[in-house]
């Protein structure tokens, strides 16, 4: 695998992903779904799953998936970012699946993954504390007698839609993962009113919920499984940011070409032209960092942890800057509800704060590179 060189299969995959995302998530549909209770369309999820096989990309073949890697997942994510396709892809495919695989729990994987691949099962990884802090050393949910879970978590991505949740809870020997049914007695879930209406987060309340421990003694600890999941999701979010930023750059350039003020296209003013050029640089950097993180994970071209953190830092900043510039280039129109830019802008703001956020990624990156041993 040569880094940055896509195979023919990967290029074909990108075409399929672009086609299905474009058809499934035209802007009117995204806006319609933003207003619905669940926030996405289960039929679209099934189309992505059983019809075109995109949900099982990174699921091992023994569980019905394609056994592909993060490069493939990143290509899909880029297209979902371009279209802002609403749906529980991050919670299911980018967080819960890698966490589950990292636990090495074959029995649970056999139970859940075929449904994920088909697009009939939505999963979530509940690994926050009661204020939304990511991967707490002291979980705010505790496992009591008989493995019953009690406590609260906030900001759980796709937590309300999930048919099953992997819940990080304090057990006798430290934090552990437990499987909780979406309709388990004692579990209440409340969608948190979000800035970004295209992703859903939930607050979970567990009151003596029956749960099953997940993981084999030989495999990674719960903390390591959560870290693996976070790393995968970071690459997916980074790639999605690339798609969204590219879409905004395209719309800015098009607008700068056709909008006339003072008898000239506004793109002929250097202030606007330079802004567009800076957006291009941001998008190019974001794309390089996101792809690199995917290849680092699949082919070991770099330390995957470092590459993922680098991708988060670079793409989050780039996404935010491009979104702000897109509003500015469009003038008043860019500030309206009717214009699509605010949907991408809110996505950029929100994603930059998820999973510990870019501040935590920057801190890890600093530890890794500033004072080498």
């Amino acid at each position, binding site marked *: 695998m040569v880094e940055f060189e896509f195979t023919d299969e990967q290029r074909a995959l990108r075409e399929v992903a672009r086609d299905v995302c474009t058809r499934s998530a035209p802007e009117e549909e995204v806006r319609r779904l933003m207003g619905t209770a669940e926030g996405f369309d289960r039929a679209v999820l099934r189309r992505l799953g059983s019809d075109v096989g995109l949900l099982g990309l990174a699921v091992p073949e023994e569980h019905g998936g394609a056994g592909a890697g993060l490069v493939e997942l990143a290509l899909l994510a880029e297209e979902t970012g371009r279209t802002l396709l609403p749906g529980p892809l991050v919670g299911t495919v980018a967080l819960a699946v890698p966490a589950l695989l990292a636990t090495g729990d074959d029995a649970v994987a056999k139970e859940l993954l075929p449904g994920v691949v088909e697009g009939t099962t939505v999963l979530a990884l509940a690994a926050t504390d009661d204020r*939304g802090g990511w991967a707490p050393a002291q979980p705010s949910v505790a496992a009591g007698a008989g493995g019953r879970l009690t406590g609260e978590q906030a900001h759980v991505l796709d937590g309300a839609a999930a048919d099953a949740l992997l819940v990080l809870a304090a057990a006798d020997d430290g934090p552990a993962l437990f499987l909780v049914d979406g309709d388990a007695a004692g579990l209440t879930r409340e969608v948190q009113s979000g800035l970004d209406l295209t992703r859903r987060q939930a607050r979970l309340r567990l009151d003596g919920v029956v749960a099953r421990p997940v993981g084999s003694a030989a495999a990674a600890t719960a903390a390591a499984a959560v870290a693996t999941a976070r790393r995968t999701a970071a690459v997916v979010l980074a790639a999605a940011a690339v798609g969204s930023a590219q879409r905004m750059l395209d719309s800015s350039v098009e607008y700068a070409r056709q909008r006339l003020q003072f008898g000239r296209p506004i793109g002929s003013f250097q202030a606007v032209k330079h802004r567009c050029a800076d957006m291009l640089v941001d998008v190019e950097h974001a794309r390089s960092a996101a792809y690199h993180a995917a290849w680092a994970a699949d082919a070991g071209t770099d330390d995957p942890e470092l590459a993922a953190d680098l991708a988060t830092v670079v793409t989050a900043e780039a996404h935010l800057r491009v979104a702000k510039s897109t509003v500015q280039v469009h003038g*008043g129109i860019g500030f309206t509800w009717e214009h699509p830019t605010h949907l991408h802008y809110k996505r950029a703001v929100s994603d930059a*704060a998820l999973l510990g956020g870019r*501040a935590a990624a920057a801190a890890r990156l600093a530890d890794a590179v500033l004072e080498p041993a």
Partner: protein
Amino acid sequence: MTTTAPLTHRDLVADTARRVVAEHPPESTPRAEFLGACFDAGLAWVHFPRGSGGLGVEAGLQDVADSILQGAGGPVPFSINPMGYGMAGPTVVEHARPEVAAELLRPLATCEELWCQLFSEPGAGSDLAGLATRAVLDGDTWVVTGAKVWTSLAHRARRALLLARTDPDAPKHRGLTYFVLDMTDPGVEVRPLRQMTGAAEFNEVHLDGARIPDTHRLGEVGDGWRVAMTTLMNERRAIGGGSSRRGSGSIGAALQLWRERPDLRTPALRDRLTALFALADAARLTGERQRVESGDRPIGPEGSIGKLVGAELNQAVYDFCMDLLGVEATLYGSYDPPDGVDDETDEHAGPHDVQRAFLRSRANTIEGGTSEVLRNILGERLLGLPGDIRVDTGRPWREVPRG
């Protein structure tokens, strides 16, 4: 001491304000009555002539009046009628016939009549002088047809500042005329426009044969651009003038959040907030210095410094607040447009008002002149750098490409 004005003027303003407060205790006086008393006493705009809401003293002394009036619990009229107080008042007093000014200013000052600004159009934003709305004289009445957009508060305004084209064959700046429009005219239709915060602060306004008596023209026919300059300079000053109190405005919101949430502090964020504070204070002091140095001269293009910095500072401050909030920043109260009487501003005290203010701040570098346009003004008007090579000024307006 923040001004070099003679003590007598300062004393006059302070004494007058104290007398108004004593005779009309703000807590027991209806809002319009209190503001009417302020107007009659010359405290609405202290630099206006006596009889027109002023005392004929330095504009910098407005703060002296406001801090006494508002300190005693009086309303903040600028926040109720921002376009009225910030722009319409100064434009009307300078350019309207005296009898028309007398008719318009008092209800403006009492906030019984809110004002809006019908300048921007779909095809004319930064290029305001390129606007296409037509006004045609019919006897002694102007008939206006066209479409305006982004009109803040049009849905609640009784009157509008209107710029329209009266001569399409003249070069663009010379074919404009300025009017005061009655928003209740049957030819006026207001449609709300929703913004990214969810609220609908601004509107599209369709003018279909709206009628304006010639007496409500401000300035000469064809001289609208010069009148509009009065409005725009005052707009930038009103938006960018900032407060003369250290730590007020958006930086104050950030400082408050910082103090309330020690759990969220990090050394990196502390450094950022310090830098923002320094920037905010430099901007505040620059505004103060400009006020002192300009004395009673009208504010010139230097007022654009405050607008430019204030807009970008607001955005940087709310970026900071969002970063401070961490994952809480991903929450939002509600995007449903607020209804009822409380929609005077887009600011709603609520659990997620930082997020709302953050989104709202994106407009700051667009409304009242974009940052790009303001930098052009600073470069060309203050520094004397050569302007862009123009393709639109030398020929009749109707021949200039638009879109």
